[in-house]
């Protein structure tokens, strides 16, 4: 039942090692994520939230410690190799999609996340009905724009597309780095609702960084607060149900 998906053991990261600017970002992080956990991750700027996500996705290699995904040691696996298991949505809508490729072409790339890319014809037409069906479920009319270049979409549409790209092929772990922060309040709300719905329906394991205390408590089943590179709160179940925004704010105070 509660099978571990992700396990971080004594993870530490250091920037500029050996120079006078040397700084420890993450300090001995130990963390275990169970199958189906939907974690909301909080912390002040510089607490190490993004660094933690980058350590998990492989774009930063930790200076010490190890990472296990489904009991497999992935500590030395590159970001490219980890893409087979891990999908991400970034904060900046521009980062998640290829602007000079159409919506359908972007989705096609995403259906092959982590697979070997060969000289087979891409077979876009075969996938179009599926893409039409998937985009029709989304809030902002993407199904009408399958042949539009992603660069011509609005920020909200691009981010919705990024989210669909991350989930169209089921990932073992979904990483969301403030994926609604750049959107207006309504669009942001829509995408959060969609996120919640998809994560529940597909029973995904997910880490979502947010700065909104309300969202952090409303969504997901577990809340983690980082401070100065350490986990200062990890609440789940009953303990989390009792949490209030005021409780969390205490961790942000110096």
């Amino acid at each position, binding site marked *: 039942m509660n099978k571990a998906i992700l396990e971080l053991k004594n993870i530490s990261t250091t920037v500029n090692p050996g120079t006078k600017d040397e700084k420890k970002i993450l300090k001995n992080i130990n963390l275990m994520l169970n199958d189906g956990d939907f974690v909301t991750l909080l912390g002040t700027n510089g607490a190490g939230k993004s660094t933690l996500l980058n350590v998990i996705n492989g774009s930063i290699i930790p200076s010490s410690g190890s990472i296990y995904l489904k009991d497999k040691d992935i500590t030395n696996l590159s970001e490219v190799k980890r*893409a087979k298991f891990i999908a991400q949505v970034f904060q900046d809508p521009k980062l998640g999609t290829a602007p000079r490729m159409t919506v359908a072409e972007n989705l*096609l790339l995403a259906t*092959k996340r982590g697979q070997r890319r060969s000289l087979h014809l891409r077979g876009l037409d075969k996938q179009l009905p599926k893409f039409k069906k998937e985009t029709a479920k989304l809030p902002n009319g993407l199904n009408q724009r399958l042949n539009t270049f992603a660069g011509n979409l609005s920020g909200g549409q691009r981010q919705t597309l990024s989210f669909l790209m991350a989930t169209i092929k089921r990932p073992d772990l979904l990483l969301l780095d403030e994926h609604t922060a750049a959107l207006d309040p309504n669009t942001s709300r829509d995408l959060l609702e969609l996120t919640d719905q998809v994560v529940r329906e597909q029973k995904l394991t997910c880490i979502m960084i947010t700065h909104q205390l309300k969202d952090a408590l409303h969504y997901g089943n577990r809340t983690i607060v980082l401070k100065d590179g350490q986990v200062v709160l990890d609440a789940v179940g009953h303990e989390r149900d009792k949490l209030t925004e005021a409780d969390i704010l205490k961790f942000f105070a110096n």
Partner: protein
Amino acid sequence: MSLITSTIGQGLLWGILGLGLYLTFRILNIADMTVEGTFPFGAAICVSAIVHGVNPVLATILSFIAGMVTGAISGLLYTKGKIPVLLAGILTMTGIYSVNLHVLGKANVGLLNNQTLFNSKFLTDLPDGFSSVVVGLLFAILLVILVAIFLNTDLGQSFIATGDNEKMARSLGINTDNMKILGLMISNGLIGLSGGLIAQNSGYADVNMGIGTIVIGLAAIIISEVAYRDISLTARLVAVVVGSILYRFVLLIVLQLGFSTNDFKLLSAIILAICLMLPLLEKKFHLRKAIKKGTDRP
């Protein structure tokens, strides 16, 4: 008449260089200076092979492979060696100059009466200048089709995605370093091939024939973009070849106006600079509106 046919033939042969450059300049979004070394390298390999009795078809294929090698060198320096791409290209280009001298044995080697792709029996029966059109058309069509098919494969799409959004490409599991190397290899392969064909057509290879080639390739791309906007990628490949032909005609006109061939490179650079600034000039002086206004008048 023969002036026009040979201009079209030249345009087609140089168009293959434009096609190769398009893959790096527009799709990967990098300025690859290797071109200026690759082009004479392809020419030198091809001419040297033919002079040593190699079949012209095989010699032409060798010029493609030679180009792929230079592309791979630049690609490795750029991705694995972390050298800025402009510098990586310049290093390869500079190194190849010496290699070319070794391949040719001297600065300039003529084909004399050797068999080339352009002087087979069938082609020499055609009117003057037509051989380059026939061979150029054949290669241009074949290569446009091959490149278009490649770009429509899973590998080709990953290549496009790498140039479009590297961070996204990596997050989707695309090995962007390999894609850049592959792109540089195919691009330079085409450029080497173009060098081999042009050397056969003009009857010699010269170590200095690479100077200014990047401008010729860029001109083909920019002219095609000014002439045809918002077209599909496959149509763009055809348009680049057309752009290359148009550029040859611009040069022909300039020459007919009485400019000396010595001024060719200067004029090429000026024309290209103007073309590159066109989008900016358009915005500033509402050129498009003015053109429209002018043509609307009865």
